[in-house]
């Protein structure tokens, strides 16, 4: 049984059909890539799964739960976590507090008011910062990090919510080749910890990290399956050729 099961998902903005009867399956622990030409509906599909957009029709199941109409906080509590395309770290908070904020999200209001969990979560914050090579910058303002470091911080924050499915929207956008390579190295150890659904333009990066792919074109799924199979698909080649 799939961890994520998307069936017949559609999204319209007025007359514009951004997503049309899209199906998607992601198994537990799988690294799944979502690719397609510009405007193919990748980000819309990811946003519908995360709850940033409500689909016009179709259904989304995470494990046994139907999350189609749940607002973002409830989806996060069900195990979905999202790293936004545009970095949205909290620039005026220090790097440490950014991660702590994500980690403590499950605490009750009363526990937060009494600051009960800060000491308990301290080790986990430090471990995440160390894992994403930010331990030396824990007390720097997040807004003072480089673009690449902000992307890593965002991934650390998304991971701090202990998701079963982590959604990454263009995690290497704007990164230098070295940073892109380092990002791949940072994501690889997540295998077995949670499933990953990655939207990315960099097909080389997707090829290195993902087990399977789904290709979208004009809001529709044109191919899905193991990496090699999808790469060999003529429909996929055609979709990319059509967009020059």
């Amino acid at each position, binding site marked *: 049984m799939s961890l994520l099961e998307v069936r017949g998902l559609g999204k319209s903005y007025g007359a514009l059909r951004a997503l049309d009867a899209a199906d998607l399956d992601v198994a537990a622990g799988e690294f799944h890539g979502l690719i397609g030409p510009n405007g193919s509906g990748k980000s819309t599909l990811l946003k519908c799964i995360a709850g940033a957009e409500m689909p016009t029709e179709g259904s989304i199941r995470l494990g046994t739960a139907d999350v189609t109409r749940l607002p973002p906080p409830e989806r996060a509590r069900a195990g979905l976590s999202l790293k936004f395309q545009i970095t949205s770290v909290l620039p005026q908070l220090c790097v440490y507090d950014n991660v702590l904020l994500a980690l403590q999200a499950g605490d009750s209001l009363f526990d937060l008011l009494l600051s009960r969990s800060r000491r308990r979560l301290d080790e986990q914050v430090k471990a995440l910062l160390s894992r994403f090579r930010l331990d030396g910058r824990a007390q720097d303002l997040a807004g003072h990090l*480089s673009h690449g470091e902000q992307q890593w911080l965002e991934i650390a924050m998304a991971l701090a919510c202990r998701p079963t499915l982590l959604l990454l929207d263009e995690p290497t956008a704007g990164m230098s080749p070295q940073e892109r390579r380092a990002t791949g190295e940072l994501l690889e150890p997540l295998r077995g910890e949670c499933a990953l659904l990655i939207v990315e333009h960099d097909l080389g990066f997707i090829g290195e990290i993902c087990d399977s792919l789904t290709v979208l074109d004009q809001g529709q799924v044109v191919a899905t399956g193991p990496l090699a199979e999808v790469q060999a698909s003529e429909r996929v080649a055609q979709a990319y050729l059509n967009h020059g």
Partner: protein
Amino acid sequence: MPEELISGPARLAPPARVAARARALLPGIELGLLALALVLPPFLEDFWVLFATRVAILSLLALSFDLVWGYAGIMSFGQALFSGMAGYCTALLATQLGVTSVFVLLGTGALVGLFVALAVAALVILGKRAPSLVFVSLGTLTGSYVVERLARGWSFVGGQNGIPSLPRLTLGRFEIAEGPMFYYLALFVLVLVYVGLRFFTRSQLGLVLAGMRQQEGRIAFFGYRLQHLKGVTFCLAGLIAGISGCLYAFHEGYVGPGQLGPVQSTQVVLYVLFGGVGTLVGAVLGVSLVDLFSYFLSQRFETAWPIVLGVLLLLIVMYRPSGLIGLLVSDRERIGSFGRGGKTGEKPR
């Protein structure tokens, strides 16, 4: 980490020495103001003691607005509604039932503020969808306006004249007269509320509010139920405004429709914008300085003083959005750190 991995301007942190000096300022300002407030009254004439009492009471109202806008990002133009309703209810309790106990009346004022805020929150904040800033602003403004009009037309609460000749508050057998005694009562309540708010805003819950203020859309995806958080903060602010309203009514010996309306609410917004949003002490400074300026300007420019004050406020809001406190403390210090005893193994840089 190899330096070549870092793209863009990565090392922008201020020099440690400058940051450390700036960090010590805020507690210094708070303690300095408290010391001044404690020792000043014996050296002041009666007029200035009354003036300082009003400043302490209005500071409570300003703190309530600072909490909702400066910390939770809710633009409320209805703080006067909560304080005014509390003023009216406690005034009725005193005049109709003869209740004068400071504990009963302050407790009642706090509860009225809390429940009125809860009712307003249910209408404008706790809906199915997250409300927009404009919706909340106009909703609270309209509520404030409507209740003021109702009070003006309702003879049971004195209509245009309000409820005059309120009895003095009592503490056991002692009457709390206007002057130093009322001043120290107001100061005691102000310090109590201030310390409580400092605890609240510097807790891990305060961290969530700080996050909400910066990237509201982001932190919902961590699993925080933002509308609940906003509702709780809004009701807490209502409670504080209620205490302020009760003290104000019994200090002035009168409560009137003007204390419920948009004019009073807007004045509170100006106090906080002038002093500095999101710092608590900025709200207190704002009330003190705006009221002092108003007094001295009115002495010098009998008719034109509101224009001079208005221009001054406009200049501050346009050129110093962080308010006067922003001239003294860094942004880093204004935001502060969160969580009691939350040592992270490193000193902030």
